[in-house]
């Protein structure tokens, strides 16, 4: 967990990186899912509104939908985890982001996101 991450109550995170944002799911979510066996990511160029489903992740037990924490346009996807979803369960693997987006989300969209300490409290 990076302390600059902003998280949703549904366990997605968004992390500002220069003019882009990195979006993924939290370590807590990965741990809860268990063995991850399939990830479906959108195509570069696709646009999503906040709270819209943009990805699906399947563990051995079930399929889970992943929601956009803020609205934006996909500019890069993590092909590595699509090819080898089990990397997400590998603690030594660091590139666990799903997509990078460009976003012009205004402050309203960030209002319900939790900062690091609030999220930690939420999952405890």
């Amino acid at each position, binding site marked *: 967990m990076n302390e600059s991450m902003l998280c949703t109550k549904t366990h997605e995170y968004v992390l500002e990186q220069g003019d882009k944002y990195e979006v993924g799911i939290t370590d807590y979510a990965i741990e809860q899912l*268990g*063995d991850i*066996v*399939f990830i479906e990511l959108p195509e570069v160029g696709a646009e999503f509104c906040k709270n819209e489903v943009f990805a*699906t992740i399947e563990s*051995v*037990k*079930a*399929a889970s939908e992943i929601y956009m924490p803020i609205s934006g346009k996909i500019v890069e996807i993590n092909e590595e985890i699509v090819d080898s979803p089990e990397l997400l*369960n590998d603690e030594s693997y660091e590139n666990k982001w799903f997509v990078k987006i460009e976003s012009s989300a205004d402050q309203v969209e960030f209002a319900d996101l939790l900062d690091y300490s609030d999220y930690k409290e939420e999952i405890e």
Partner: protein
Amino acid sequence: MTKQTFLHDKHVALGARMVDFAGWHMPVQYSSIIEEHKTVRESIGIFDVSHMGEIIVFGEDALPFLNKLVPQDVTKLVDLKAVYCQLTNKTGGIIDDLIIYKLEDKKYLIIANASRIDEDLNWMVRNKCGFDVTIVNESHNYSLLAVQGPKACDLMKSLGLTDLPEFFHIKRGELFNINVWISRTGYTGEDGVEILVRNEFSEYLWDKLLEAGKEFGIKPIGLGARDTLRLEAALHLYGNDLDEDTTPIEAGLAWSVAKNKTEDYNGKAKILEQLENGGSKKLVGLKMLDKGIARHGYDVYFNNEKVGVVTSGGISPIRGDNIALAYVKNLDNLAVGSTIQVLIRDKFYNAEIIKRPFVAKRNKENK
């Protein structure tokens, strides 16, 4: 109120993730479902399945009573032999799937699904009129430990049980000076045993088996891997693949229906009719051709027409692909080799109908 088995605290201490299943707080995984799955296929795993039901039926009419309840021919059971069967309703639908053990003359043990114990007992009582029989629910007195895998019998033998029961037989035995019933059965497709023990000894036995099993590579296995293991072996899960609107014939269980049984049983007319002509639906095995996972409830299509529904699906850790069980219309062109489509999140994914089981069984059935 969620129930706990007598091993609940052991699971928590082992770091298991606990979930609610059929009214019980049960371990779904200790480490990783895939790792646990492979442990059972490669060496040996131990499962707490104490949530399952134990019902004793005894009395002068125990045999004719049970024979009225199931399509199998219970008269064929000799002492200490077991049979897989279904409790059927008047229209042949499956109330539960069971294993019946003949313990001795006029005394039988039934192992039932946790989620169905109450329904089973109600149904038995409703059918009891005119039979001199006593039904006792012993579920709350017994724990059930499954020890499964290619090394399961080696472990048992190393503990002094040199004369294990044959496949689908049960025996009294002694493990660490505790009296147990040992049954050569399981729900994984592997060789192994299920050990019935009184609750007060289950924690001790669990610890002892884990300790003695170390040299064989034993690990505790949760319900997650139990599900992937039984799916590879194409063993039905009640509530997913079996229900009161599905007959044994439709479920592909004709092998467990006696063909020449003279006695009447619930649903006999319907079951015999379907044995002759087939049911309106049939169970098939699927292998996903496209990269997608079929799950319970997903629709199955053929030539743009909905022809069925997936009842169990997931990954096969051993095959390395995705497999499923589905019910489809009983049509000749929906057979092994046919390509059908599974609707996953509004997109069609190709799948092929293949033979069951998905992974060859390695229990005594085939030896």
